[in-house]
């Protein structure tokens, strides 16, 4: 497959709007550090996590599109979807980078982040997520690197990358195994296993451009932190409604990230075609819609069976939590499952587009419910004064500006780097 930078004006009116929003976000970021969290956000002891955490959880789930696409294309060899791989990885790299920016703003003492490198907590999901996301960002960077090398004709760097990125990847996987188990033998086993895999798949880089061990690491790291984001909430069985709290939350977070990731990549492809005035790829999107249907069916199937097995189905019929849950499951699950159920329906773009969007919104709503709406907060001891939470101007501004930044840099990459396939090859 051959790629090209899209030749179009760099500075458009849309770019100007995005840059203005980014500038506003820059001020919000400065305000947060100049005036403090308490002054600039509406977070409190009762609502210690707010918009930014919802935003991070949503964005990480959507950015799951990067690992799902890479896995489909390079491991399951879904050649039909090859065109999605580079933009998906670029989208993922930007998403994770901006999530880290949000986290910097959200952490009270971000300059202590290096403590993650020297402390060894035993069963902290936050520690798992921190390490896993950090390592995954480096893998995403390595996955994307050849695009930059090609643009500037840095062949020597590309050779270096091809030779050494698998070595780095194997070490990263072994290091992660050690950090999560505290066991040297486990790390050694992991090192040996991934070295063997690298050896067995050593030709892959020459053929497809990306050594497959990078993709294996990308999918593995993603599986781990997507599920551990669910594990974060396992400590709150007393606060989170049991419509969402479940011992299987880790699995459900992973499965929903797969579904929303696919939906986001489909939407990304549609938006790229729309904004860059390129032909739409409805046939390919229809095929992806089939995968999305399967991902949704597995996710919502397990979700409902789990709810039934725990004997909590009745909760869906009572109270405001029941309403939220039904909106999530019917709007984000049932309707897309109907809209995307057959080949005929999927080939109708008037059904495919809403089906995709609804699938995406369902997972977004799930994260919102999990972090805020489905929580019953007891408040700080002795309790009784919980009140409500509305994100502040600074919280909204930073969140919106980072979404703007993601769109801006995504377009910038598409305009300057060989990310999209050449148009004549797109059918």
């Amino acid at each position, binding site marked *: 497959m051959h790629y090209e930078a899209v030749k179009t004006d760099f500075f458009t009116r849309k770019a100007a709007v995005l840059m203005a929003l980014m500038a506003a976000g820059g001020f919000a970021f400065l305000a947060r*550090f100049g005036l403090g969290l308490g002054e600039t956000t509406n977070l409190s002891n009762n609502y210690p*996590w707010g918009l930014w955490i919802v935003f991070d959880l949503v964005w990480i789930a959507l950015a799951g599109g990067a690992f799902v696409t890479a896995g489909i294309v390079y*491991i399951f060899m879904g050649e039909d979807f090859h065109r999605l791989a580079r933009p998906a990885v670029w989208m993922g790299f930007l998403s994770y980078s901006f999530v880290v920016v949000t986290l910097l703003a959200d952490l009270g003492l971000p300059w202590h982040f290096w*403590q993650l490198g020297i*402390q060894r907590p035993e069963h902290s999901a936050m520690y798992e997520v921190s390490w896993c996301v950090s390592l995954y960002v480096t893998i995403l960077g390595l996955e994307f690197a050849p695009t930059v090398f090609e643009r500037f004709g840095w062949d020597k760097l590309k050779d270096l990358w091809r030779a050494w990125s698998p070595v780095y990847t194997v070490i990263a996987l072994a290091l992660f195994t050690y950090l999560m*188990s505290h066991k040297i033998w486990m790390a050694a086993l992991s090192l040996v296993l991934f070295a063997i895999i690298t050896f067995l798949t050593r030709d892959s880089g020459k053929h497809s451009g990306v050594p497959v061990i990078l993709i294996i690491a990308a999918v593995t790291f993603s599986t781990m932190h997507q599920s551990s984001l669910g594990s974060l909430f396992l400590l709150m069985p*007393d606060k989170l409604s049991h419509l969402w709290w479940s011992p299987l939350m880790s699995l459900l977070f992973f499965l929903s990230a797969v579904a929303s990731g696919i939906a986001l990549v489909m939407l990304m492809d549609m938006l790229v075609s729309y904004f860059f005035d390129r032909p739409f790829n409805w046939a390919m999107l229809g095929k992806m819609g089939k995968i999305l249907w399967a991902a949704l069916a597995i996710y919502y199937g397990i979700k409902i069976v789990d709810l039934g097995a725990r004997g909590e189905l009745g909760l869906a019929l009572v109270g405001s939590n029941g309403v939220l849950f039904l909106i999530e499951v019917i709007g984000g699950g049932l309707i897309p499952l109907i809209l995307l159920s057959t080949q005929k329906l999927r080939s109708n773009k008037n059904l495919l587009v809403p089906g995709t969007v609804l699938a995406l919104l369902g997972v977004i709503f799930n994260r919102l419910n999990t972090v805020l709406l489905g929580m019953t907060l007891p408040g700080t*001891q002795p309790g009784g004064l919980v009140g409500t939470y509305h994100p502040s101007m600074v919280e909204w501004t930073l969140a919106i500006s980072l979404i703007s930044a993601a769109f801006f840099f995504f377009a910038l990459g598409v305009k300057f780097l060989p990310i999209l396939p050449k148009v004549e090859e797109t059918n």
Partner: protein
Amino acid sequence: MSLAVMIDTTKCIGCRSCQVACKQWNGLPAEVTELEGRSTGFQNPPALSAKTLTLVSFREIADQAAPSGLKMVFAKRQCMHCQDPACASACPVTALHKTKEGPVTYDSAKCMGCRYCIWACPFGVPTADWDSLAPKIHKCTMCFNRVEQAETPKTLNDQPLLPEAQERFLAGAAKPACVKACTTGALRFGERDQLLAEARQRIGSAPGKYVPHIYGEKEVGGTSVLYLSSVPFEKLGFRTDLGERSYPGYSKIPLEIVSPAVMGMGGLLAAVYLIKRRKALVAGSAEPGKKE
């Protein structure tokens, strides 16, 4: 060895000496508050905060035997020092730590300020100092390092301090500041097992005075603060829906399988790739990904 505090709320008169002693020992500022017209009456301030690590909760409950038909019940509230604390399990940098002696301590030099501990605590205890540009977490540490920090004075009123007085001082410093300050003996500091035995003995010897429940014996896997009460604990405003299982137990399993899962997932993906490549070769198609 596991230290604990027993709080016999039937002996508490709501004098708040413990609250003052805690502020004094930890060097915490006062809070500007106002009396609230709620059922909490004279309780002040309304909740724990970065400035108030312990407070006495006030509740008025209906009681026919009381002269006014209302009875005041008090309970000193602070960190429960769980046996298996959710906050310490949540903490990604071990800033919160369950010591083998019993107290759950906090080290601000490690803390990143993620506030997961505030979310995770089933008792609503850790708080952040939101006014600060570097919002650290604050909570009771059972005066973990009080003995080391206490400097025995050499003189008293310009007279050399007598050895007995020095011993008394050290004995006081060996207890948490709140326990030392308690005027009625409502607070007891000691070995958890012994305190539990004493609590059972108190309930057994005065039936009718206490509800037959030691709050903290089993809640969320047990805590290092134990409460006795004359009224059901929900009337004191305690959560009675927390269960007896320790919270970190829920997230332990998925986190323990992460390392094996990394290898399993990696192996599985490699197998899929190799099989797919083999199939592609057998099918006689071009080498996989050759399109590149």
